[in-house]
């Protein structure tokens, strides 16, 4: 087996091993390819250690994240406002009203059912 062929399989071999005897035989005999495998092994070891390492977060990010509940409810009320006034904004009244009516009816039915199951 040629070195180039072995080099091609090393990125997979390093993690999952290889049942291919010719690869293993080559690695046992070829110091260059063996050194190459060792490089992949240290690379994989390095990548694994990254999992336990977190980087410094940018200043201000934490506060932005804390403000999310408030920001989210502001977005919601803006959206509700747009939805309520859609007829006015878009002008395509009838379909929107029909959908809203259907949703309202479904909601009503599910509410009406509740006392029966309680």
């Amino acid at each position, binding site marked *: *087996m*040629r*070195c*180039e062929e072995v080099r091609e399989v090393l*990125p*997979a071999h*390093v*993690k999952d091993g290889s049942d291919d005897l010719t690869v293993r035989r*080559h690695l046992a*005999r*070829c110091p*260059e390819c*063996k*050194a*190459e495998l*060792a*490089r*992949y*092994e*240290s*690379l*994989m*070891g*390095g*990548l*694994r*250690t*990254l*999992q*336990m*390492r*977190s*980087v410094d*977060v*940018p200043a201000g*990010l*934490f506060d*932005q*994240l*804390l403000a*999310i*509940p408030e*920001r*989210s409810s502001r977005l919601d009320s803006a959206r509700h406002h747009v939805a309520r006034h859609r007829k006015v904004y878009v002008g395509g009244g009838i379909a929107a009203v029909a959908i809203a009516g259907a949703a309202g009816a479904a909601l009503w039915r599910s509410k009406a059912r509740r006392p029966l199951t309680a």
Partner: protein
Amino acid sequence: MRRQKDTGDGAERELVSSELIERCKSGDEEAWREIVEATHRDVYTLCLRILGNPADAQEATQDVFLKVWRNLSSFRGDSMFSTWLYRVASNTAISKHRKRKRQRLNEAGVDDEVLAQVPASGSVESAAGAKIEVERLEEALALLPDGLREAVVLRDVYGLNIAEISAEQKISETAAKVRVHRGRKRLKEIMFPEDSGTETGER
């Protein structure tokens, strides 16, 4: 954020308790603060590794926590919170990539540029058992083309399997496997540039 099977310390525990999540669902702001405090570094780190630049990672982290806040009520205790959070984070970061793709260099075009940016080595021994500097490794990851970086980060840093990666990247399992393979190879060339010549022989 961390996957048990790869940590090896066995002392893995959930940073966010179900009690804390319940308090948060009922609108307790202190509970939200505790959840953010416990998890935001890991989320930001994952986003940075996937996206490769701080500005995108910061934006993605905000999107992640917005989704968490909005979907918390549908989170039930049958899976680990960290697993769910992790999934939301990698989804968010990867889809951000897709949106930005047009603005970026394509995979083929980036090769030479990547190799040109790599600092001359000398600090890393190439012998067996060579120590890898983690800072250099993070930099090298950032140099990979997006698709390859996503695949290697998910597979080799966070321990996802190929099926999970193909689902995250919305590609076939074969394609995911190829990306992991090419990503490792490219990363090896970046980390050990002096050894990536093509000495050949037949044995």
